[in-house]
């Protein structure tokens, strides 16, 4: 196994950890393990970047946190729940406390802005009254108060990502997972999205962002976890983007 270089090897394990990975390995049927003995602790209310090249294990990590995959070895605890032991029928309830944002937005193109956000509430069976109250509120938070009825196709990339963030936030998750949220955006829109993420984090939500955007990572001075070939090679408070060769 490659030697792990950490500026801060052992983060203090506390009761306020919202995510813990203890020696987690995830192997697929062929090839080297996607994650190899990863140990991580993320506290409630933290803002964390996860960086690394393709094949470093970032996507597998996100899938494990969403309980889309289960670890081959080790233990993952999210919001106090052991994901390896979680029953299938309890997964929906668990996921309602997570918000997820994708690079390609994954919006429903046949519906307008309001319907896309309301969709997240409808499928967890919120009442119509709650939906009418919550959706306008979250749309105002992401700066789309005047665009309820706009079709998704009529929006810019930045606006589409805001709709996706509104959809992720409307169920008031404890953790927001964002997989390359600025990957399809120009620099200005990317910064706007990051400011929105900071605002969400300031309101108490734990934010975890997987990104390749060096400029943003280096400018924001947040915790940066760098992965390579399935292991964590850096885990730094106010960290920076490291190249693969470093």
């Amino acid at each position, binding site marked *: 196994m490659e030697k792990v270089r950490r500026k801060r090897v052992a983060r203090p394990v506390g009761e306020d950890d919202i995510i813990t990975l203890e020696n987690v390995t995830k192997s697929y049927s062929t090839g080297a393990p996607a994650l190899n003995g990863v140990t991580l602790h993320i506290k409630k209310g933290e803002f964390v970047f996860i960086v690394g090249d393709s094949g470093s294990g970032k996507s597998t990590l996100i899938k494990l946190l969403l309980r889309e995959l289960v670890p081959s070895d080790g233990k993952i605890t999210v919001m106090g729940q052991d994901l390896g032991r979680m029953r299938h*029928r309890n997964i929906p309830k668990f996921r*309602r406390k997570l918000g997820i944002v994708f690079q390609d937005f994954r919006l429903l193109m046949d519906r307008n802005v309001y319907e896309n956000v309301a969709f997240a509430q409808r499928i967890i069976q919120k009442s119509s009254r709650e939906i009418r109250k919550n959706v306008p509120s979250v749309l105002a938070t992401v700066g789309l108060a005047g665009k309820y009825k706009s079709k998704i196709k009529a929006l810019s990339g930045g606006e589409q990502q805001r709709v996706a963030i509104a959809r992720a936030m409307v169920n008031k998750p404890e953790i927001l997972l964002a997989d390359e949220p600025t990957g399809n955006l120009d620099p200005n829109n990317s910064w706007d999205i990051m400011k929105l993420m900071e605002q969400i984090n300031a309101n108490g939500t734990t934010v975890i962002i997987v990104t390749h955007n060096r400029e943003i990572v280096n400018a924001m001075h947040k915790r940066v976890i760098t992965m390579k070939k399935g292991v964590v090679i850096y885990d730094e408070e106010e960290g920076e983007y490291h190249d693969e060769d470093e």
Partner: protein
Amino acid sequence: MRMSSFFYTLGQGFKNLGRNRWYTLASIATISACLFLFGIFYSLVSNFQHVVKTAEEGVSVTVFFNEGTSEEVMLAAKSLIEKRPEVSKVVYISAEEAWESFKTDYLGEYADGFTENPLEDMGNLQIYLSDVSMQPALVTYLESINDIRTVNRSEVTASMLSGINSLVAYVSMGIIGILLLVSIFLISNTVTIGIAVRRQEIEIMKYIGATDFFVRAPFVIEGILIGLFGSVIPLVIIYVIYNKASFYLAERFSMLNSILDILPVNTIFEALLPISILIGVGIGFMGSVTTVRKHLHV
């Protein structure tokens, strides 16, 4: 489930129909065609069975007793025979009644020459069957009774009616079975395409925390609605056609009315309506549930 969620799920089921409208129409059309054939078949079979039943009721077995058998013995035999399950009716014809009937039918005024009853020993029982296929068993039983001299029966008619009845039943069951399998396959195809078209939406639903039931229910509702529409359309068509056809046949072939007694449309629909809707909704439900279980891992 909240009422708003119930209506949302129901609404999504309806919307699914519109989202894949060509496949939906193809599925509805095929199920309609299957159930239309089923309805036509059912109407024909019901009428045929009605005709057969009427004919069966006319087929009787006649037994004659040994010379000198008293009326009491004949009536005792009548009571015994009436208890058999395949027998629907037994009529006792006394020697006097037989002679009276013969005189009226064949002799007329020539009967006056007879001073005694020449049919003195022709008192008999006419036995009508509820199930004509049981005729051989009944005949064996009758022949075993001591006082009975002769058993007259129409074996050809009985076996032919019984044979036609079974043939029609087997052929219709076979054809209906095949049609139902085709319908299930088509609904399954429509739902599979629906799932493929909505793959991303389903994925988002899963990530947001929708339950398995909530993800699957709209597809099952879609299948049920296809089955329901697919059964109602042919029922309406058959109702109209049957009504017109029965009026036409009754008017045009009025001389055949005694043989060709067509059942009224309401009698046919008493059973056809619930059966068709049950089959339509049933195959819609089965086709969608099996497909959703197979293709929708949530």
